[in-house]
């Protein structure tokens, strides 16, 4: 069993290809077609392009904020290749590629970061929860959904995410503990991108790694090279099979690096070195996968052309988000309750009276 071979107590790490795209563990290489690999790489590239553009839209003052995903794409796209249509996704906020794979659109993501709740009303992704801001609170939701699935004897599973910093929150431990006791079909992934804003993992915990925390909850845990698409793909296959066949939850620590800033208002030069950043660039998940494809002779893409194509697509989505109907007063009130209480109606009316007064005044 893979969880035994890569025992997090011994700080083992699952890695299948190296930084140069060489296969280190042919025995573990997942069954996956060349086509799928190329498509995955393209999806990663799309996420990368969307990310870069999001940052630049924000710089142009056309979006309020954005938390870059750059460097973490292998995790998202590997999961996107394994997750099924009826599976649930309970995100934190740095899983854009996976959200897209589940049917969320960049338009929606832009809309959200542009300050409109409609951006969380994923039209084509009914089983994806909104981005979750209060760190850690999403994990119990995933466990509850897992309970519903188990209760109904369905065979869907839940993918859920948290950052390295998030593992310090009480909700992380409570949720994993419940998941263990209830044996629900939930695949937990910690995206260990080394930082919680400015705080490095070493300030976050003294445990030898984050996967090892699974022991506290009696569930399998494994540390994986999160920049290795194949390692992530393999572990998502194994973990989802585990969960789907009633064997309960799994905790994956995906080792990666947040190449960008925490959000567009953060300045990483204040807390980390150029050398550190450069070292991590060598294991850039896109680069590694591209090198792998080149070695295998399955890389026939024109990256620049693809980039241009993706840019256009992303731009279109962004314009769609910008051109959404203006936020109406009703939108403030309409979704508070399934049926609006009288008092909220009255508050709205009073506000409309004020607006009328204001209109007359000018």
């Amino acid at each position, binding site marked *: 069993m893979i969880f035994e071979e890569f025992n997090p107590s011994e700080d083992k790490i699952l890695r299948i290809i190296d930084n140069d795209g060489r296969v280190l563990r042919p025995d573990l290489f997942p069954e996956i077609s060349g086509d799928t690999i190329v498509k995955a790489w393209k999806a990663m590239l799309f996420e990368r392009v969307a990310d870069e553009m999001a940052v630049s839209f924000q710089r142009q003052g056309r979006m309020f904020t954005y938390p870059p995903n750059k460097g973490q794409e292998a995790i998202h796209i590997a999961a996107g290749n394994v997750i099924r249509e009826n599976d*649930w996704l*309970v995100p934190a906020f740095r899983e854009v590629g996976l959200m897209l794979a589940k049917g969320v659109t960049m338009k929606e993501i832009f809309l959200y970061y542009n300050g409109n*709740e*409609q951006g*969380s*009303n*994923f039209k084509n992704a*009914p089983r994806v*929860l*909104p981005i979750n801001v*209060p760190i850690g*609170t999403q*994990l*119990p*939701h*995933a*466990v*509850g*959904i*897992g*309970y*519903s*699935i188990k*209760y*109904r004897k369905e065979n869907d599973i839940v993918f859920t995410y948290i950052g390295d910093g998030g593992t310090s929150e*009480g*909700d992380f431990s*409570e*949720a994993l*503990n*419940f998941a263990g*006791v209830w044996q629900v079909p939930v695949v937990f992934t910690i995206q260990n991108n080394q930082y919680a804003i400015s705080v490095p993992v070493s300030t976050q915990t003294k445990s030898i790694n984050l996967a090892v925390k699974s022991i506290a909850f009696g569930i399998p845990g494994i540390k994986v090279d999160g920049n290795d698409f194949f390692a992530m793909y393999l572990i998502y296959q194994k973990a989802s099979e585990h969960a789907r066949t009633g064997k309960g939850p799994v905790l994956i620590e995906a080792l990666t690096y947040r190449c960008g800033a925490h959000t567009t208002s953060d300045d990483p030069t204040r807390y980390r070195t150029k050398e550190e950043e450069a070292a991590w660039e060598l294991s850039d998940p896109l680069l590694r996968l591209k090198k792998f494809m080149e070695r295998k002779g399955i890389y026939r893409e024109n990256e620049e052309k693809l980039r241009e194509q993706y840019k256009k697509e992303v731009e279109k989505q962004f314009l769609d988000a910008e051109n959404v109907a203006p936020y109406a007063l009703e939108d403030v009130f*309409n*979704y*508070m*309750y*399934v049926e609006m*209480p*009288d*008092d*909220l109606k009255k508050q709205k009316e009073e506000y409309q009276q004020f607006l009328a007064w204001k209109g007359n005044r000018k």
Partner: protein
Amino acid sequence: MSVMTMVQAINNALDIKLAEDNDVVVYGEDVGVVGGVFRVTEGLQKKYGVERVFDSPLAESAIVGTGVGMALSGLRPVVEMQFEGFSYPAFNQIISNVSRMHNRSRGRFRIPMVIRFPYGGGINAIEHHSESPEALYSHIPGLKVVVPSTPHDAKGLLISAIESDDPVIFMEPKRIYRAIKQEVATGKFSIPIGKANVLAEGTDVTVVAFGAMIRECQRAMVMAKEAGISVELIDLRTIYPIDKETIRNSLQKTGRLVVVAEAQRSFSVGSELIAIANEEAFLYLEAPPRRVMGFDTIIPLAQGEKYFMITPERIFYEIEKTARF
């Protein structure tokens, strides 16, 4: 009809909803095998199985947080916090997610979830077992907050709460869990959330209360009657959305308001009721509205509780002052 305590009436409501709706699940600390520390869920695990009525690990945030997940994926969780003082570990889940998931997702997800807990003083309990946190939960937009004052109301309101597609905080006045017995219909019935109940009509002073304080008010009314003061007694039943209409109508008649509640008085439901009185019936007010409420202190342990708890005499004292103003 059957004579029931509030504990029995709540149990009965859960029983009816568990029987009728397979989506209803009930869980929390000690609610399964022993049926809760107050035996509110007694017998339900036996009847409906461990998958529908069960003990959870000891972690309120996860109890509520998993409820959010269940609710948005189609179940109707009814979770118990063992005491009001232990609802606070779940506060973040309640304010950040329970109350917001519907709005956050623009109506895509509903949270038909009930968080129920015993609350209030008067049972000589240790710390954290005697509090009245209704103001905290009522201030959170997106929640409904319901407090019954009788077995009958508890049953009818809880059935409404479980059937509500919005999340409901259901606060049970533990002091009268078993102290009041009443004929309650055995079949299914419901009492609407958001409507107050005029328990007694009167012309001189409006008394607004809820939960265990209703009984104390009724005792005070006996004294008031002797003193020739006609009291209109309103049981709020729901703290949010609060029934302003009933309050307004009453104040237009009496012009005088006394609010009775166990909680600390400042920044409380009492404050809100006075604000409502001003906004809805300012020109009718003939005396300053009064709050007969707890001090702005921590509720004392049992030996000191007598000072903090609201007695019929104290209510009457304030009613009289208000009537004679």
